[in-house]
């Protein structure tokens, strides 16, 4: 619980690279990792006379995301120039959306990190399309050599998702980001690869400090350079502590200082003031005369509604409510991605018990995937085959231990369950055989039986080993149950 003498107030600006083949306003490739300056053309180099043409796929992906984030989608949206000078921005302006973003207000519910069975809601201010800038590489050692510019990334479509300052802890910010990333991958609008810069977050952070019954707000700080979810969490925690100390020393409030930009230094674990460029906030936005407005039609909306699919929160809910999984278990499966949910659904659809399916997927399937660095699509045992195995266990055709051996066998061999059992020498023992076996055990072990009848529940355990010695295929659970039944009837 919050023991701090202040309330933390955080809003996130998230830039997501949309999964298009080509850039937002030209036909150059967006593929990551190409040799520098090989995916550029007159449009993205900002050469005179070139004209941008909007990529319809970027619009579709933005609409799909907006719908999933419960945003009001604009009927008419337009393009504006955001003017600033930087070497990785060859035109001297970025094409963005100023006052008519494609997606208006919305919200996202995400699992509450303090109470995982409930959700928190973050409201969204807007989500707008814009083009990315290029990449600069500086002479970090001396700062004297020329900076190198690679413009391959210039013009790549981004969706900037801006939240209200509704997040009240570093953990909540991380949880929101985690849910947002999961949703975006479910929607197929972005690969959200943070290492490749497909998902970038900036955090606006300040504190509300109760003083004499009034809330005093500290100056807002925008923290940039957050390259991992861990960095987001650490930077916000650090920034809260720093702002509180600074307020105690200086008493400066939001009224005394404009918004400041600080960069997160992951290695040092601190935020550092970034050199404020004079007038940097004055971007002199104006409508881009090279681009006409975009009308979002009903047809465009319904085309995206059809492909929305099941959201992570809907999947969690279905696994809990319809299939009886615990919230934790549902979340583990859903967090693995849509393919894992589909695999789980396949196992259950084959007739296996949902809880047993969930256990086996979380333990055996996920462990195997991790050990072999595989995706679920590459997993050698199909959902139908695993379902067949789990049904055999449900029906006590094989016990759990034997089931694990069959599972191992299926990883290496494409075989039916009966074939796998035959190959492993596993024979289903019929009930009359088990009965004979149990009678023998009772006759041969009068002392143990006496103890069991006296109420020592553990006594029977020693007979299970003896039973397996007589018949390796005897199901321990079945033997135990039958023994108990026979003793009870004595």
């Amino acid at each position: 619980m919050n023991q701090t003498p202040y309330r933390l107030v955080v809003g996130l600006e998230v830039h997501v690279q949309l999964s298009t083949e080509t850039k937002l306003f030209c036909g150059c490739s967006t593929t990551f990792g190409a040799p520098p300056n090989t995916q550029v053309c007159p449009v993205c180099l900002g050469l005179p006379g070139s004209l941008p043409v909007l990529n319809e796929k970027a619009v579709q992906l933005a609409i799909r995301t907006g719908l999933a984030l419960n945003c009001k989608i604009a009927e008419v949206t337009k393009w504006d120039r955001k003017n600033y000078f930087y070497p990785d921005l060859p035109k001297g302006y970025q094409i963005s959306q100023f006052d008519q973003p494609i997606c208006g207000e919305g919200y996202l519910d995400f699992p509450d990190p303090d109470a995982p069975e409930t959700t928190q809601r973050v409201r969204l201010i807007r989500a707008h399309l814009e083009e990315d800038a290029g990449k600069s590489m500086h002479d970090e050692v001396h700062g004297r050599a020329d900076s190198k510019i690679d413009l391959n990334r210039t013009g790549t479509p981004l969706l900037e998702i801006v939240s209200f300052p509704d997040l009240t802890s570093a953990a909540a910010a991380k949880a929101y980001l985690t849910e947002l990333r999961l949703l975006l991958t479910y929607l197929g609008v972005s690969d959200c690869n943070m290492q490749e810069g497909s998902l970038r977050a900036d955090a606006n952070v300040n504190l509300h400090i109760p003083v004499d019954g009034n809330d005093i707000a500290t100056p807002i700080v925008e923290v940039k350079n957050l390259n991992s979810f861990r960095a987001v969490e650490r930077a916000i925690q650090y920034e809260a502590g720093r702002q509180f100390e600074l307020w105690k020393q200086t008493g400066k409030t939001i009224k005394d200082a404009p918004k400041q930009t600080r960069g997160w230094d992951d290695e040092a674990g601190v935020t550092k003031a970034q050199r404020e460029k004079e007038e940097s906030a004055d971007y002199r936005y104006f409508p881009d005369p090279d681009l006409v407005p975009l009308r979002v039609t009903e047809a465009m909306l319904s085309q995206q509604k059809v492909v929305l699919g099941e959201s992570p929160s809907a999947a969690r809910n279905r696994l809990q409510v319809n299939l009886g999984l615990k919230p934790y278990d549902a979340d583990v499966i859903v967090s693995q991605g849509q393919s894992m949910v589909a695999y789980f659904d396949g196992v259950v659809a084959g007739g296996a018990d949902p809880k047993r399916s969930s256990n086996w997927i979380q333990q055996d399937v996920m462990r195997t995937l991790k050990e072999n660095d595989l995706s679920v699509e590459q997993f050698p045992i199909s959902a139908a085959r695993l379902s067949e195995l789990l049904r055999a266990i449900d029906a006590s055709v094989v016990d759990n231990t034997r089931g694990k051996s069959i599972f191992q066998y299926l990883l290496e061999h494409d075989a039916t369950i009966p074939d796998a059992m035959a190959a492993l020498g596993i024979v289903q023992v019929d009930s009359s055989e088990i009965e004979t076996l149990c009678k023998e055990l009772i006759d041969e072990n009068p002392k143990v039986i006496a103890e069991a009848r006296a109420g020592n529940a553990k006594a029977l355990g020693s007979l299970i080993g003896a039973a397996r010695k007589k018949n390796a295929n005897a199901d321990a659970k079945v033997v135990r149950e039958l023994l108990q039944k026979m003793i009870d009837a004595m």
Partner: protein
Amino acid sequence: MNVSREDILKVASLSKLELAEAEFEVVASKFRNVLAFVEQLNEVDTTGVEEMAHPVDVHTVTRSDTLQESLDHDVALSNAPKSDGEFFLVPPVLG
């Protein structure tokens, strides 16, 4: 429209222009001329006229997400004042 010295210096700095004192009056008078020219638009009564984002009544011009050929690497770099054959080179930029 009254344009102050500060306004002009601000616009110059936003545009990364260095104005020598001798140039200032020349630029300032040109600047005021341009503004005065545009200001004539204020004479038009636009009451009840809907705001337009674009002078032509065309909308939703898009292209399909299809790859087009990029420039050859050396052609892309050929107009650069300075390059190392791989990157564009610019004077050192601090972070």
